[in-house]
């Protein structure tokens, strides 16, 4: 579908490619990263990244979801992934992301999320973009708040992972709230 590639102040957001696989295995293989996500398995299988990248490219070409590599511009370093999954019928999309532990605490995810929200509203013509984080991962909630998403509720014990239930906190931003000047 689209040849979407974005440049923000410090980042490049681009389509995933096979060369990203070894970096993904290293970063996603850290349990501290995996445990906060819904779908990153742990232990992370050796071929997990290449399979994920293949699936992502297929889904991208079909317009089903856009999984972007989060790359540090200065060093061309792969740091993580941010994906947007539209449900066009309802003019909405869900966003999910993860970033490797060495890159935490620099505001990279906030920067990437802002750009993807812009993509969702201005290119995909959506009306609503939402995201969720585990209640034991409040840092992710702060990222959502920083980009202007609004808390909508806590869904209790809604996911089961590694033998335990976890609550998910949901945030969303509507088109009418999206500030094009920021």
């Amino acid at each position, binding site marked *: 579908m689209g040849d979407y590639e974005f440049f923000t102040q410090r980042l490049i957001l681009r389509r995933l490619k096979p060369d990203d696989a070894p970096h993904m295995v290293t970063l996603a293989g850290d349990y501290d990263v995996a445990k906060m996500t819904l779908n990153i398995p742990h232990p992370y299988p050796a071929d997990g990244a290449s399979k994920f990248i293949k699936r992502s490219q297929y889904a991208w070409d079909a317009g089903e979801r856009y999984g972007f590599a989060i790359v540090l511009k200065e060093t061309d370093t792969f740091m993580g992934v941010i994906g947007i999954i539209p449900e066009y019928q309802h*003019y909405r999309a869900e966003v999910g992301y993860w970033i490797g532990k060495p890159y935490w605490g620099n505001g990279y995810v906030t920067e990437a999320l802002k750009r993807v929200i812009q993509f969702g509203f201005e290119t995909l013509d959506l009306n*609503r973009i939402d995201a969720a984080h585990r209640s034991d991962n409040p840092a992710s909630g702060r990222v959502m708040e920083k980009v202007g998403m609004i808390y*909508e*509720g806590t869904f*209790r*014990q809604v996911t*089961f992972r590694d033998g335990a239930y976890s609550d998910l906190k949901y945030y969303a931003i509507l088109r009418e709230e999206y500030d094009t000047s920021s």
Partner: protein
Amino acid sequence: MKTLILDSDTIRMRRLEHADIPSIIEYASDIEIAKNTYVPHPYPPEAAIEFVTMTREAWNNDDGYTFALIEKQHGDFVGVMGLHPEPRHYRGEIGYWIGKPHWGKGYATQALRLIIQFGFEKVSLNRVSARHFTTNPASGRVMQKAGMIYEGTSRQEMYHQDTFKDTVLYAILKEDYHAQNS
């Protein structure tokens, strides 16, 4: 699992049958049902056949349990209610509608209580949820009466009948259910 009947004082819940099709067509054709659910309007009669066939097959595969609601005094079909499990997360979602001539008699609340019990005691779920549009507050009261707890409102989540609608989420956990029934 195949011959599964749930009973309260005034209603019986059983698997849908092809004999229910005329009643389904009659009630589902009412625009008031389409306003509050995803039942299409105008309602094509073949949709009822497909609905019964699909839900019976899901029942056979333990993929989902969609019941006919029968009012015991006269044996009348009054509505449908389904429980759709997501086994990976030990959760399930409920959807239902009651034919308009049978509104206001408490059937939905009774059925919801029965299906919640079924979900925890027979399907071994940990969480059961249900949603309604904010334009249908009566459904929220049914959920409250059945012991479900409000968790959040997803703003403009659905594009339905040419407008964006907010959906309200209620859920009950196994621990809530046991606390309520001890």
